[in-house]
């Protein structure tokens, strides 16, 4: 993906973060997610339209190892944003990645920023290794 001017702006003060433009906010369904491919990594990005917030996490559900979370239903638990896997309804916090059903598995989350209508996901070296 090409670097844009916006990215250079974003990079100021975020030295360790690589900000990748994944698309425009008009691509996204309201209160729903999309899956993006970056090299071998699959990233699920969610548009919380009602809160005007964005979240991103690995697309892989760790419960049964399925590439699926972007198709999951989003929502909240006590205000904490979450996504539920369509397969067996394991829900994960999009803030901490923790499984909210009390299971041991957890997911990696990524920071997301929207600037001028474009949506950026922040990748760290650690995160890329997950794929």
């Amino acid at each position: 993906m090409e670097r844009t001017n916006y990215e250079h702006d974003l990079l100021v003060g975020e030295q360790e973060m690589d900000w990748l433009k994944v698309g425009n906010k008009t691509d996204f369904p309201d209160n729903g997610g999309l899956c993006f491919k970056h090299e071998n990594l699959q990233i699920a990005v969610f548009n919380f339209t009602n809160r005007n917030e964005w979240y991103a996490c690995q697309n892989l559900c760790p419960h049964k190892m399925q590439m699926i979370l972007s198709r999951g239903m989003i929502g909240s638990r006590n205000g904490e944003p979450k996504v539920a896997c369509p397969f067996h309804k394991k829900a994960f916090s999009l803030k901490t990645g923790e499984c909210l059903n009390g299971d041991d598995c957890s997911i990696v989350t990524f920071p997301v920023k929207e600037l001028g209508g474009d949506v950026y996901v922040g990748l760290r070296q650690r995160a890329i290794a997950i794929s």
Partner: protein
Amino acid sequence: MKIVIIGNGMVGYKFCEKIRKKYTSNQFQLTIYGEEHRPAYDRVHLSEYFSGKDVDDLLMAPAQWYATQDIQLITGELVIAIDPILKTIKTHKGTIDTYDKLILATGSSPFMPALNGIDKDGVFAYRTIEDLQQIERYGKHVNNAAVIGGGLLGLEAAKALMDMDLETHVIEFADRLMPRQLDAKGGEVLRLKLESLGLHIHTSKSTKEILGKDKVTGLSFADESLLACDMLVVSAGIRPRDELARASGIAVGNRGGIIVNDQLQTNYSDIYAIGEVALHKEMIYGLIAPGYEMAEVVIADIAGISKRSFTGFDMSTKLKLIGVDVASFGDSLDATEECAAIVYENTAKGIYKRINITRDGRYLKGGILVGDAEAYNMLLQITQNHMDLPENPAELILGTRDAKPATSRQGVEALPNTAQICSCEGVTKGEICQAIVDHGLTDIAMIKKATNACSGCGGCTPMVADLLKQTLKAQGKEVKQSLCEHFSYTRQELFDLIRVHQIQTYNELLGRFGNGDGCEICKPAIASLLASIWNEVILKQSTIQDTNDRFLANIQKGGSYSVVPRIPAGEITPNQLMVIAEVAKKFKLYTKITGGQRIDLFGAQLHELPLIWEELIAAGFESGHAYGKSLRTIKSCVGSTWCRFGVQDSVGFAIEIENRYKGLRAPHKLKGAVSGCIRECAEAQSKDFGIIATEKGWNLYVCGNGGAHPQHAQLLVADIDKKHCITYLDRFLMYYIKTAEPLTRTATWLNKLDGGLDYLYDVIINDVLGIGEQLEADMERLIANYHCEWKHAIEDPDFRKRFKHFANCDEGDPYVKFESLRGQKKPVEWGAII
């Protein structure tokens, strides 16, 4: 301080887990040795390996867990010597390690009796995953198998063999099954029940010799009888793995087991033994819960925080054997002077219950439950807590005429705070209730996290749920049947709100009557309500639909989808069959006939779905709504047009009805059937609504169900004509749609309906509520609004572009992978992609 644990089984693992919950690696450095190559796995549920669980599902925790907890895990290495003076150990690879405290959790091995021929091919133990894999491999080439040992594990092994479709025999030396837990009568009831399920049981049999040249071909017994078998699994008890201790000068019992005191210390105070290898007061504990309790005691002792003692353990147990509940608790076999037994027996249903009470009738000492163990938790609590018995103790085991036994509800309130609710983790009622109050817990998952209750076998979950309900109620918190945290209304209340306020979207409803961002419970429930009320195109609000509704197809293992075109009543022309065949060939789909007389095409990727439907729709097919909580199929028999017995045209009527209600969304899926005569080949009485032809017209049955809890449909009205049949069906379906809770099938709905079938008859036929016309009008509006959702989806470019895996490129998901099976394809197993 450095702690070394020898034995990475369930108890060794649990020791690590428990100590790490309280102490970091700066306080206690941990190293655990396991001779098997895998990390510790769940032996209690080993036979689930045969019913589809894979090895990873059985792991207590993956290898990474040990790393994240800063525990050194060394697998595939056997410890062969301990020097208790120098405090070192040595492994078979020659590695020497030192310790400050040593924990022996070496467990046990299966006892293989010294029978002639025990070393033949085809003779297996039942203990490790390797044993199971070998049994599975060998079992593929044989027809029948025998198990020596009719105890708990032997019957578990027999279940595994039955799951492999082998003719299975169980050989027990004693005169009954499970002699350590059951009395003669209980053993007999269990035997009859298991025999009716296809198991062959031979008691009072002493095996003399294993027959066969190189491999086993049969068994001979002391009574001169013979049994032919191709395979033998031995489950004749366990022997503690004390050889390492024995060789290192640690004291062991005459009949095996490492001798320990109440702190689980051996004759060397720095060496402890826990689990099945420990011999405490002449007892070996072959269950998991006492092993976990021992781990707790040792941790308390090492940390020096409290003087906790192991004082023996209640060996009460409840389990499901081949689908039959069996439980024993307290002094189950007690027949001493101080005790009297109360027995309930129902041989026809395979139920036997016995409780032993003190002569004065005041206390419960123990008992046995076979076939129905619902009362187990409560009876165990009464026994352990020395609670007063009711005036008529027989009530505790007699099936009362009320749906719930008298004890179970009032039960949890009566328990003292010290009552142990979760025996795996040793959590008391007091601890659970305290956690609910202190941390404001509101569901089982939160309780599990905070207290560890329900995290082991899960058997205590119903009691924990009762405790939660009761505690919340006592705090004055409302325990309402509300949908979820985002809506404090019932489904029926929301139905009315949507209608009265003319609400069209989920967001509008959330904004006006809800809070937060919604969740996977309220979104699909409200999506279903909106569809049932307005019958709008569901794709307009795709992100509140379950995955299947969101992509108008059924998600399958691996993330591919299946496609089901509607084939009303199962009638299809050769040309239509050819279209389906062409599509399946072109897109390389797996095809199978469904239970509802249509054809399912599996293995389509997201981006292929619109392409597939384009072809199907061009050939005249419509969506089959197999993905929705909606009308599925109307099954039919061939009826009077062809059948020599048929009295009416069942296919014609079934087509008419399927086309009338196709696309109808409801609280749960709906299935119907029409049979052309009393022979009932369409199985209409197992459907949500079933119609059976009579000489005079049609009989209408409602609220039947297949599935997990089969229930026959009940006759609502007899000998009516088609027109009346449709009117009543309109009313019935609409009334169900309006009043049922989410995900409630018609059978469950009727079971909960006050007044039952009589009331339903009054509403539908007698129209006592005066809503008949309204219901019919509501249904007419839904029918008028019908559209094929797939036609809509492929014609609208905005909808269509959603059908792709990646938003930023046109590739499919590279992780969707298939392998071949019987000439078609199948997805790779769970987890095989990464």
